[in-house]
C-alpha cells in the first residue's frame, strides 16, 4: 500500500486540478468579460472581434471619466447611497442580532422558547413577500421614497439572530459569565467585556452577510424609491439598463459603456472587503451548519 499510493494518487490529482481549473475559469469568465468590456468604446463593444479579448483602443479611463461626470456624477451618488444603506442597515441588523442572539443563548426567561420558535419560523418567510405590504404600510406613513424605506426593513435579520445564538451558546462559557458576575460586573458590562470579544468571528460574519444583503438588494429599493437621487447602485444600474435597452437614451454618450464600467467599479468594494476579511468569515460561515 505504501508503494501503490503515490502512483495511484497522481492521475487523480491531475483530474482534481483540471476540475478546479474548469471551475475557476467558469466563475471568472463573466468578471473577466466585465473587465475587458470596460476597456472598450461602444463600437468595439458591439462590433468588436471578440467579447472576451481586448480590441480597439484602450478606453478604460475615458469610460471612467464619462462614468463619474455623466448626469452630474449621479453614479457616485448611487455608490454613496449603497454604502450608506449597506453600512447603516448592515450595522444595525448586526447590533440587533448580536444582542438578541446573546439574550436567547444566555438567559432563561418566560416565553423564550416560544419566541425562538417564532423566530426560527420567520427565517422561512421569504422577505421579498414582505416588500409590497411594507410599501403600502410605509406609503401610509409617508415613508416611501426616503432613505428610511430602504434602511429600516434591512434591519430585520432573523437568520443573523439564529447564527448569533448558536455561536454564543458554544463560544461563551456560562462559567466565564458567572465568574464575571461574581466579581460584581453588571449584566451589560459582562456582555460587553466578556461575551462580545468571544463572539467576534460570528459578529464579523453576520455583519458581512447583512452588508452584502443590503448592498445587493434590488427588489426593496426598486419598489420603495422613485427619486433617482436616492437609488442604490443596483437600482441605478437597472435604470440605465432599461434606458439603454430601449434605444440608448439617444444622447451622445453610450449608456452601455457606462453600465459596463459602472458594474465593474460597483463590485470592487465588496470583493475587497471579502478578500481582506477572509480569516474572519471563512470560519464564521460554518457556525449555522455545525449544529
Amino acid at each position, binding site marked *: 500500500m505504501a508503494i501503490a499510493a503515490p502512483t495511484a494518487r497522481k492521475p487523480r490529482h491531475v483530474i*482534481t*486540478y483540471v476540475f*478546479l481549473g474548469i*471551475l*475557476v475559469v467558469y*466563475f*471568472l469568465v*463573466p*468578471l473577466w*468579460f466585465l473587465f475587458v468590456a470596460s476597456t472598450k468604446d461602444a463600437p468595439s463593444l458591439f*462590433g468588436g472581434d*471578440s467579447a472576451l479579448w481586448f480590441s480597439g483602443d484602450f478606453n478604460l479611463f475615458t469610460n471612467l471619466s464619462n462614468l463619474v461626470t455623466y448626469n452630474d456624477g449621479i453614479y457616485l451618488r448611487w455608490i454613496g447611497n449603497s454604502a450608506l444603506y449597506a453600512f447603516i442597515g448592515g450595522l444595525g441588523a448586526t447590533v*440587533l442580532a448580536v*444582542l438578541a442572539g*446573546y*439574550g*436567547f443563548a444566555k438567559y*432563561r*426567561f418566560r416565553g*423564550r422558547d416560544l419566541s425562538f420558535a417564532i*423566530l*426560527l*419560523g*420567520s*427565517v*422561512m*418567510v*421569504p*422577505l*421579498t*413577500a*414582505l416588500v*409590497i*405590504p*411594507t410599501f*403600502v*404600510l410605509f406609503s401610509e406613513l409617508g415613508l416611501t421614497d426616503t432613505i428610511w424605506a430602504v434602511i*429600516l426593513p434591512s434591519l*430585520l435579520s*432573523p437568520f443573523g439572530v439564529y447564527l448569533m445564538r*448558536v455561536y454564543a451558546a*458554544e463560544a461563551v462559557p456560562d462559567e466565564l459569565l458567572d465568574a464575571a458576575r461574581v466579581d460584581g460586573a453588571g449584566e451589560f458590562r459582562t456582555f460587553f467585556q466578556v461575551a462580545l470579544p468571544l463572539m467576534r468571528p460570528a459578529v464579523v460574519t453576520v455583519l458581512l452577510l447583512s452588508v452584502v444583503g443590503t448592498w*445587493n438588494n*434590488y427588489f426593496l429599493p426598486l*419598489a420603495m424609491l422613485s427619486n433617482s437621487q436616492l437609488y442604490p447602485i*443596483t*437600482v441605478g444600474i*437597472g435604470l440605465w439598463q*432599461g434606458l439603454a*435597452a430601449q434605444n440608448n437614451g439617444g444622447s451622445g454618450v453610450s449608456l452601455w459603456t457606462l*453600465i459596463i464600467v459602472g458594474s465593474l467599479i460597483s*463590485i470592487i468594494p465588496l470583493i475587497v472587503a*471579502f478578500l481582506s476579511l*477572509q480569516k474572519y468569515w*471563512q470560519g464564521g*460561515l*460554518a457556525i*449555522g*451548519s455545525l*449544529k
Partner: protein
Amino acid sequence: MAEAATAPLATTKVRAATRKRTARERRHSLTGWLFIAPFGVVFVVFLVTPLAYAFYLSLFSKGLATGTAFAGINNYVRAFTDPSFLKGVWFVVRFSIVLIPVQMLVSLAAALVLDNLTNRFARFARLMIFLPYAVPAVIGALMWGFLYSPSFGPLEQIFGAFGADAPFLLSPDNIFYGLMNVVTWQWAGYYMIIIYAALRGIDPTIYEAAKIDGANSWQVALRIKIPMVRSALVLILVFALIGTLQFFTEPQVLGPVANGTITPDFTPNIYAFNLAFKYAQFNYASAISFSLGAIVFVGVYIFLFVTRKRGSVL
C-alpha cells in the same frame, strides 16, 4: 446538539436553587428580554405588522372602476385559480427541483476537492469560486445577458468558429437553463464555502482511523465527510429553496433582452410586483405575496420535517 444536551442539565441546576434566587432570576429574566427587545421591536414592526397588514389588505378588493370593497377570501380563490400565479409557482417549483441538486453537486464537489488540497492554487481557487457571491445579482444577471447575446456574445463567436449557431439561452425553450446558469454562478461559491467550512470543522483523527481501516479517499468522502456535513447541506438546501421560490432579480433584469420570454407573470414575485406597481392592484398583489409566503413556509417546513433528525434545530 451540544445545546440540546446542556440545556436540561442547566435547567435542573437552576431548579435546585429556585427558592433562594427568585429575585435574582426575575432580574435575569428581565435582562434577557432587554437584550431581545430591540430586535423584537424590529421584528414586530417589519415582519409581523407587514404580514398582518398584507393579510388584512388581501381581504379587500379594489378595481380601477370601483371603490374598495370587502372581498373575504375571494382574492385567494382568485389566486389559486389564476393561471398566471399557478404558472409562476409551477415554474419556480420546477426550477428549484432542477437547480438545487445541480448547485449542491457543484458546491459539494468543489468543497470536497478543496478540502483535500492545501496548496496555494487551492486557496486561490476557493476565493475565485466564492467571488460571485460578492457581485450583486443585478450585475451578475446583466453580465450574463451580455454573454448570451446572439450578436456580440462569446457563445456566438465560439459556436461561429465551428460554423454553428449558438443556442440563444434566453429563448422560451432555453430560458430555464439560461437562468439556471446565472443562479448557479451566483450562489454555488457561497454554498461551497459553507460546506468547506463545515468540512474543516471535522476532527481529522476520524480520517486517520478510516485510513487505517483501509478506506480510500472516495470512501472517506462518501461515508464520513458527506454524512458529517449533513446539517450544512440541509441549511444550504433551505436557503436555496427559500431563495429560488422568491426568484425575482435575475429574470427581472434579463427581461429587456429576452425577447418577451420573461412575461410579467414569469415568477410569483415578478407577478406580484407587476400587479402592485404596474397595475395598481395592491390588494390582489398582497394576496399573491401572502400566498407565496405561505407556500414557501409550508414547502420549507415539509422539507425540514422530512429531513429532520433528532437534535437538529434547523
